[in-house]
């Protein structure tokens, strides 16, 4: 399976966040193939997408912690 096939599989999946990113990755690759992006621009745009994954992990952590605080606060309110 080629990289483009893999991207198409993700684009057709039901995971919206992965679908969004795969569409952007495919668009970046297509524009590079057409000669509309320099090597440096191409590399930078793909590095942005890698950083988006790190951001996702950090955001998930914030949401998980917030959920925990909310749940614990709910449990505490049962005795107050």
């Amino acid at each position, binding site marked *: 399976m080629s990289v483009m096939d893999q991207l198409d599989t993700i684009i057709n999946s039901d995971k919206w966040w992965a679908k969004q*990113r795969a569409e952007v990755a495919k668009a970046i690759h297509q524009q590079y193939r057409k000669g509309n992006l320099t090597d440096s621009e191409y590399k930078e745009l793909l590095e942005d997408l890698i950083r*988006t994954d790190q*951001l996702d992990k950090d*955001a998930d952590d914030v949401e998980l912690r917030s959920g*925990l605080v909310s749940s614990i606060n709910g449990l505490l309110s049962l005795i107050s």
Partner: protein
Amino acid sequence: MKIFTPLFLTVFLSGCSLMVVPSFWDANQAESVINIQVAVEQLDCENVTYKQIDKITSEITWFQTYSESSGWRHQDMIELIEPLDETVDSFAERYHREGTVNSVYCGLKKKNMMLQSQRVSEAVLGRFKL
């Protein structure tokens, strides 16, 4: 005590992977992330100006400075905004270096910045209100 107990229990229960102490809802940070998102959406790739880029970078700097000044409990917010800051910085640096940016690169960069700013907003706006 009302704040400390859930905070302590959250850190205790979440284990080593989530050792950063959680920050709570903050109206100033909420407003700032929406300002960042709007500034990214208003970026006109057919006619990029210094003012448009400065609007995004200044708002990110405001968010970082506010979070740093708010003390240790906002460490998670500083880490959260870091990837978006790097994405925007490389765009601003290229604009300053080259004096302009091509519209195809700008359009794709804008998509990346929108994906990241939307995710930051979701996390910041979804925090627990004390």
